[in-house]
């Protein structure tokens, strides 16, 4: 089996390659995009451009340079954490991203916890009560929830819980109450999917012989669950949950738009509708870095947790 250091470094290289790859792709695409960057910039500042001004702005922005030159300029800046300046607001992109980051993290973390808890609940319930109506009910629920468009769910929740019943605030970020609806919207769909997975995983572990042995030893159901089933079922689950974070990131774009949540997803969406290319680039690259890093982390954790691998490296 591989030496962990080798594993780490090879994955780190892969990470780097991916980041460069995506920045390249994004940059190329933006370059091919219709619309002259200088013009967009100027129009966003509410002035109509005179040709001479446009020209000088173009030169300033380096648009006269070759594609390769532009890309490497951008890359050089990016490495120094300068992702350019937003067309729309004139603020440095890095600053905007960092401003929004905590909001998105809050939302994503909350939704993640929600998803984990609910899916564990559903999965365990399904396992314990399998073949009885609870299991069937959970199954129906799962199918229904995964058919729900998250944006519709969000709107429905806002409508019924926030407007009609006045239970929760419908917009913006604030205290704990503000978090509830967005988290449910973001997390519910995924929790249903993973509820199924948890159940499948648990069922598989349940049918193993050592569970029967534990039962024969006289352990109560609960002890069997926590001691044996959970630990062993958890491994593939943790991997999947980690990977789901990517999905959550994507979903955040939609949820943030609905709930006027000041996060990264919304920054991206707004940037796209305003054709704010530096923001688009910055967001995409940033989010991808997060995504890839998380995947890498998940792989590492998986490697650490898998007792089979542990044994090998110990010898």
């Amino acid at each position, binding site marked *: 089996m591989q030496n962990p250091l080798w594993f780490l470094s090879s994955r780190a290289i892969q990470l780097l390659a*991916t980041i460069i790859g995506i920045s390249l792709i994004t940059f190329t695409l933006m370059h091919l*995009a219709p619309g002259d960057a200088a013009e967009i910039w100027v129009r966003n500042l509410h002035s109509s451009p005179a040709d001479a001004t446009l020209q000088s702005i173009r030169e300033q922005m380096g648009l006269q340079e070759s594609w390769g030159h532009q890309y490497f300029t951008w890359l050089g800046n990016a490495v120094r954490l300068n992702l350019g300046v937003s067309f729309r607001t004139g603020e440095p992109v890095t600053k905007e991203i960092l401003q929004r980051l905590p909001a998105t993290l809050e939302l994503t973390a909350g939704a993640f916890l929600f998803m984990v808890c609910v899916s564990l609940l559903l999965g365990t319930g399904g396992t314990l009560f399998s073949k009885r109506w609870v299991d069937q009910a959970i199954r129906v629920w799962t*199918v229904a929830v*995964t058919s729900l468009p998250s944006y519709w769910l969000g*709107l429905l929740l806002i409508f019924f819980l926030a407007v009609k019943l006045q239970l929760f605030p419908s917009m913006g970020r604030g205290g704990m109450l503000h978090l509830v609806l967005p988290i449910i919207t973001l997390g519910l769909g995924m929790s249903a999917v993973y509820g*199924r997975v948890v159940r499948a995983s648990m069922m598989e572990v349940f049918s193993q012989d050592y569970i029967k042995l534990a039962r024969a030893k006289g352990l109560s159901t609960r002890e069997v669950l926590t001691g044996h089933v959970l630990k062993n079922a958890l491994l593939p689950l943790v991997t999947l949950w980690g990977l789901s974070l990517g*999905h959550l*990131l994507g979903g955040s*774009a939609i949820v943030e738009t609905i709930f006027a949540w000041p996060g990264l997803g919304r920054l991206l969406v707004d940037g796209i509708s305003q054709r704010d290319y530096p923001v*688009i680039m910055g967001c995409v690259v940033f989010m991808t870095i997060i995504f890839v890093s998380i995947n890498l982390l998940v792989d590492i954790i998986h490697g650490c947790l898998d007792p089979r691998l542990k044994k090998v490296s110990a010898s």
Partner: protein
Amino acid sequence: MVAAILAVAIMASWLAPHDPLTIDLNRRMEGPSATYPLGTDNLGRCLLSRLFYGARTSLGAGYAVSLVIMAFGLGIGLFSGLAGGKVDAVTMRLIDICLSFPSLILSLALVGILGPSLRNAMIAVTTVWWAGYARLFRGMVLTAKEKEFVVAARVVGARGIKLMRYHILPQIMPVLLVMLPLEVGKIILVLSGLSFLGFGAQAPIPEWGAMLNEARPFFQTYPRLMLVPGGAIFVAVLGLNMLGEGFRDILQVKKPVSWVS
């Protein structure tokens, strides 16, 4: 149960021509039924007609995109799995790279760059989502390849490409059949989602996600505008999901856990 909802999903695209495409009827702003069974939307268009035509757009786009994605993914997966060796390794690297991007974000960016339109949204989703299927199918091909009867067939001299189709494909078929409706459902959700954000179908094309978006400013006063298209999406996807589940029950397929991409 499954069949009934499936019928609804299919019927919608057939019922659509029954209702006149009376869009742009600026006659009334909003109002409930009688001539207009579901009322009118904020621009006075018949909601029911828009719903039916939206079915064509949303469902049609969804089916088209998912078919392309799965076909492509299947093709590449088959190719890679069968070829084996270096070709396989290289292809997998490529696929891994494609998969390391968060799909929704990337498709968002693609649409943003290409410009918001239904066609671009479809292109964006197609480009981003095929890799997951490719990896999955390749995995299945590899498993199928190892089965005894396949090995036996090869020993007897079954020629790589053609006869493999008769040995490997039948093994993949059940999973494929189960996946199809489920994935179509997913793609429909994604495409409508893009439209909802304003990056898919543009006004006045009726598309369920876009209709939801248009309903947003009014949802407090006229919740109907929001309930209807969302409900439509829900029912359509639900039908598809139930179909997939039904297939799974019939075919006794175990859900491939690794596909959550």
